[in-house]
Every structure is written in C-alpha cells, then in structure tokens.
C-alpha cells in the first residue's frame, strides 16, 4: 500500500515534519523531528527511484481525479534524479544542522528555522514531482517563501536586506512564470504537462506561444540565477545561516534548472523552440557570459561565502550551456552536473560553515593558515574546490567531460576551448582560498583554534568523499542522467 503512495509521501513527510516542528517551541525537539522527516523522505525517494527503474513512469492522481482534470504527480527518470539530489542533500545536512544552528540562531527561532528548512524541501520536491504547471508554481512559492524566511533568520541585520532583495526578485520571477503558464492555459486550455505537450504539438507556433515561452524562460531564469538575473544570489547565500546556505546552494537552483528542462524538452518540445527566434542561441551566449563573468568576479571576492556564491552562478552557466546545445550528450552533462554540483557545493559550503562556526568569520584575511589548524575541514574544501575546477578523478571532471564531448559532436571546437578556459579561472579563485588557508602562517587568533566538532565534520566528509567516489565511478549518476536525457529526447514524459 505504501509503495503506491510514494510520489505524494515524499512531499507529505517534509510538510508534516515542518508542521510538527512549528508546533514545538524547542530547537532540539524540532531538530529531531526534522532529522526523522528527512531520513524518511530519503528512504521514500530511494524506494520511488527503484520503482521507476523497474516499472518506468509512475503517475499518481491527487484526490482520485484523473488527469488532465486533476493534478497528477508524475515521476520519470529525470525528476527521480532531481528528487534524489534534493532529499539526499537535505538528509546529509541534518546532523550538521544541530550544532551550527544552535550557534547561529537564537533559541526561540530555531524551531522556525527547522520548519522553514523542511517546508523548503517539501516545496522543492513538489516542483520536481508534479506534472501540473500550476501546481509547480504553488510549490515554487512554497519553497521560495520558506527560503526568504530562512535567509532572514541569518545572524546579521544585512540578512533581512538580502532576504528582502531575494523576495522582490523571486516574486518577479514567479510572477513571470505564472504569466507564461496563464498564456499557455489560454492557448491550449490545459495545465497538465503531458496534455500541454500534446496540444502544443498541434497548435500553430505563433506569437502568443513565443510570449509564453519568453515569460517562462525569464521567470525560471530569475529563480535559477541565470546571468544577468543572478544579482540576488550572492547576498542571499552569504547572509543565510550556514546550514541554510548549504541546502539552498545544492538544491534550489538545481530544481529550477530541472523545471526549465521540463518546460523546454517535455512541454514545448525542443523542435518547436529551435524556430525563427534564437532562444537557444540566446541561452548559449548568456551561459558563456555567466561562466566567465561570474568566475572572474569570484576571483576578486574577499568573503569566501560570496566567492562560492559567484562560483555557483558560473556553474549554473555550465548547466544552461548543456541545455542550450540541445543534444542528448549535452543534456546528460547538464543532468549529471545537477547532481555533481550539488555534491561539491554542498561540501564546500559545509566546510566554510564549519570555519564560520570555529572562527566566527569567513573573510579571507582572517582565514590565514586555517588549513593547518582545521586540516579535515579545509581538506574537504580542497576536494570540493578541485571538483569545481574539474580535475580528473572528481565529479566536476565528469560533467565537463560530457559538455566538451557534446561540443565536439556539434563541431564547436571554440566552445570546448571556452569550457576549459573558464575552468582555468576556477583555478584562481579556488587557489586563492587554498593559498591563504594552507600556505600562510596562522596568526595568533587562528592558531588557538581547534578542528570543528565531529557532527560538523561528518556530513562535510561524506559529501567530499562522494565528490571523489562519483568522480571515479560515475555509473550511478551519469548512468541515470544518460537514461533521463534519452527519455527527455524521446519526447516521452
């Protein structure tokens, strides 16, 4: 009986966890609830994934109303992969959260933090699992509102400002998305993804459709921080509590990328998009700009959290690059980079969160020689940094390998060159942190520090180890991504 309900349970468990956390007023109790909820969600996701691998696409009718009238939850390989990313990261971070949150957030707000954490996870999984364009909007808002609150719970007063900035930008993004969906509803009279795809295929591709595509692209583009719509991201990541940053950086933008892929490949149909108007070419230019510009800004950033945030903008560039090349190999690169980037950014932000926990600051000047007093933490950071660069043996290499191969397949040698060149900029920004952390003499304050507590170290080490493991043996991640990309190109939903 339970296996039948898995598609809805992965949303319900974090949702009810959030409600229970809100009812308790003690931080440690709500942490326990959140831990149980996140581990249960992960278990349910693994069950769901094995079901999808075994039986193919799963459809679940909410309320017993058959689609396209009712809301349908539809799980195929592509969103099973995304849901697996979200629930894995959310569960791995939980042991970390307790100590870090206890230090960064005042006691009477801790329960609210865990509420928002779980609501955010419920919303992100909801976006991925739903097969309904409007339902996706609702979940987009659920996760976004939870995110705004989570950022606002940060330590400094600037957190409120960052949250407010993101609120404005995020609301504009969500509004654009819903305008696009509204246009699609007027043109086709349906909201269900499968039904939309079927009706768009027989509708003339006119200006109204192009407008819908434009609104949806810009709306989701804001959510996934596509250059030049990324301005909200560095502040939001830098000012949120460390645990929140790690969750957001490794999941939120990924789910938005997934939604864009779903819209492009499953709803509009990629053949429709390659029309008179150069949508994909536009995305290609913007993603290359993101890869170079954001990496370049990261080189000069003095706050390590902001440095990593700009690196995220650059990495989103790689994901959109794969999408805009619109070949099966390139899309595999995008999908596998969703997973790989989640692992490396998760590890990097957790390591920096541990530094913030011990040192109380994440600015480069104060981190002199921190690697010598916190070798494990900074060791994990180095592994994550090597992944960001794309060194062979780490996950970053796998994603870039697929992208470069896709560029060669298209005969675009210059693009392959640009992918490698932008990776070289990553050497500089990662190198700056490594140099300060390992090759500078620790100053008086730093040398008194000790290694971070075990509960902070363990999740960081797990994610860093995963960066290496899936870099050596990519059969799980790349295999899933390849199968998902094939399915998306087959046009089957």
């Amino acid at each position: 009986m339970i296996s039948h309900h898995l598609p809805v349970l992965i949303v319900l468990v974090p949702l009810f966890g959030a409600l229970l956390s809100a009812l308790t007023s003690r931080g440690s109790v709500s942490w326990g609830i959140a831990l149980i909820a996140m581990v249960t969600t992960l278990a349910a996701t693994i069950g769901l994934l094995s079901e999808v691998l075994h039986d193919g696409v799963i459809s679940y009718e909410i309320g017993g109303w058959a689609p396209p009238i009712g809301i349908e939850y539809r799980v195929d390989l592509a969103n099973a992969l995304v849901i697996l990313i979200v629930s894995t990261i959310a569960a791995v971070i939980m042991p970390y959260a307790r100590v870090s949150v206890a230090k960064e957030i005042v006691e009477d707000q801790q329960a609210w933090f865990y509420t928002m954490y779980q609501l955010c996870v419920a919303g992100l999984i909801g976006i991925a699992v739903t097969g309904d364009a409007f339902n996706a909007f609702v979940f987009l808002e659920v996760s976004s509102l939870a995110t705004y609150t989570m950022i606002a719970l940060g330590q400094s007063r600037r957190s409120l400002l960052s949250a407010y900035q993101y609120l404005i930008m995020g609301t504009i993004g969500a509004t654009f998305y819903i305008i696009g969906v509204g246009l699609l509803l007027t043109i086709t009279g349906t909201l269900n993804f499968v039904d939309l795809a079927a009706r768009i295929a027989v509708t003339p591709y006119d200006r109204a459709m192009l407008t819908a595509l434009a609104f949806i692209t810009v709306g989701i583009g804001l959510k996934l921080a596509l250059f030049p719509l990324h301005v909200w991201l560095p502040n939001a990541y830098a000012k949120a509590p460390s645990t929140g940053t790690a969750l957001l950086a490794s999941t939120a933008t990924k789910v938005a990328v997934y939604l864009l892929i779903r819209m492009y490949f499953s709803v509009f149909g990629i053949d429709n998009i390659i029309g008179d108007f150069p949508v994909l070419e536009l995305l290609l230019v913007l993603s290359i700009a993101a890869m170079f510009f954001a990496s370049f800004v990261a080189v000069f950033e003095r706050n390590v959290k902001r440095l990593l945030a700009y690196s995220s903008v650059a990495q989103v560039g790689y994901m959109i690059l794969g999408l805009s090349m619109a070949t099966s190999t390139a899309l595999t690169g995008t999908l596998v980079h969703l997973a790989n980037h989640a692992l490396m950014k998760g590890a990097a932000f957790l390591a920096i969160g541990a530094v913030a926990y011990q040192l109380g600051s994440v600015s480069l000047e104060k981190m002199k020689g921190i690697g010598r007093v916190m070798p494990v933490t900074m060791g994990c950071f180095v592994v994550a940094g090597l992944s960001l660069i794309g060194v062979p043996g780490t996950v970053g290499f796998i994603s870039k390998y697929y992208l470069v191969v896709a560029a060669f397949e298209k005969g675009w040698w210059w693009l392959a060159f640009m992918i490698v060149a932008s990776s070289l900029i990553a050497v500089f920004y990662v190198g700056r942190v490594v140099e300060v952390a390992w090759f500078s003499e620790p100053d008086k304050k730093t040398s008194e520090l000790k290694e971070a507590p075990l509960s902070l170290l363990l999740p960081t080490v797990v994610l860093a180890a995963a960066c290496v493991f899936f870099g050596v043996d990519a059969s799980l991640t790349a295999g899933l991504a390849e199968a998902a990309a094939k399915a998306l190109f087959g046009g089957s939903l």
Partner: protein
Amino acid sequence: MKLDVVLRVVTKLMLPFMLVFAVYVQFHGDYGPGGGFQAGVIAAAALILYALMFGLTSAMRVVPTWLVEKMIPVGVMIYGGTGVVSMFLHENFLNYDALDHHHTVHAQEWGVFLVEVGVFVTVSSTMIAIFYAFGGRGR
C-alpha cells in the same frame, strides 16, 4: 484609553454579528460564494476591530500570541490530515470518496467541509499574527 462612547458601543454590538457572519460564510461555502478563506478573514477582522477599539493588550488577552502561532500549523494539519485519512482508507491522497464509500457525494461534501475548517483556522490565525506583528512593533 478614552474613546468615544458611540464607537465603543457600536463595536460591541457589531462583534457578535461579524462572528456569526463568519460562520455563515464558512458553511455557505458549499452552496455559493464563500468558504474558509473568506470566513477566516472576517473572523480575524472581528478581532482586529476589537483590538483597534480596546487596544492590543486586551485583544491579546482574548487570543494570546502563542495560541495564534500554534493555530497556523494546526489548520494546515487539519487540511493535510484529511488527505492522509483517505490514504489510510485505501484511496489516493485527498480523495474524499474514501470517507463514505456508499454515498460518495456525501463523502465529498464532508471532505470539503473538513478541508475548509483547516483553511479557516490557518487563514484567521495568520491574519491575526500579521496584525499582532505590526501592531506590536516598538512595544
């Protein structure tokens, strides 16, 4: 606080009617315009009117802040719980048919009724919470 006697008396006269009207809108939602959202707003408006006339402190004596904060998740729980109950009765999430297999129309009515109760609880308490948050600033 010194207030005009007319305002105070009229407010006290209006409050019971506002609350009854909220209940009316809540139950009439099945047949016409209305429902939990509107009813929740009307009920919250009654308390906000009371707070405007007699001060935030007396309003917080009637509905304390901790109660408001608990009511917000409880309402969602009533809504979601209705869906979970139908899962335990071997139907899909939020399929109200499960509540009464012999009279599915009745079951649907019951389902919507319960869900609207949840909406009422959450909406009214959220309205009050927002009012308290703004009204309580600088105190």
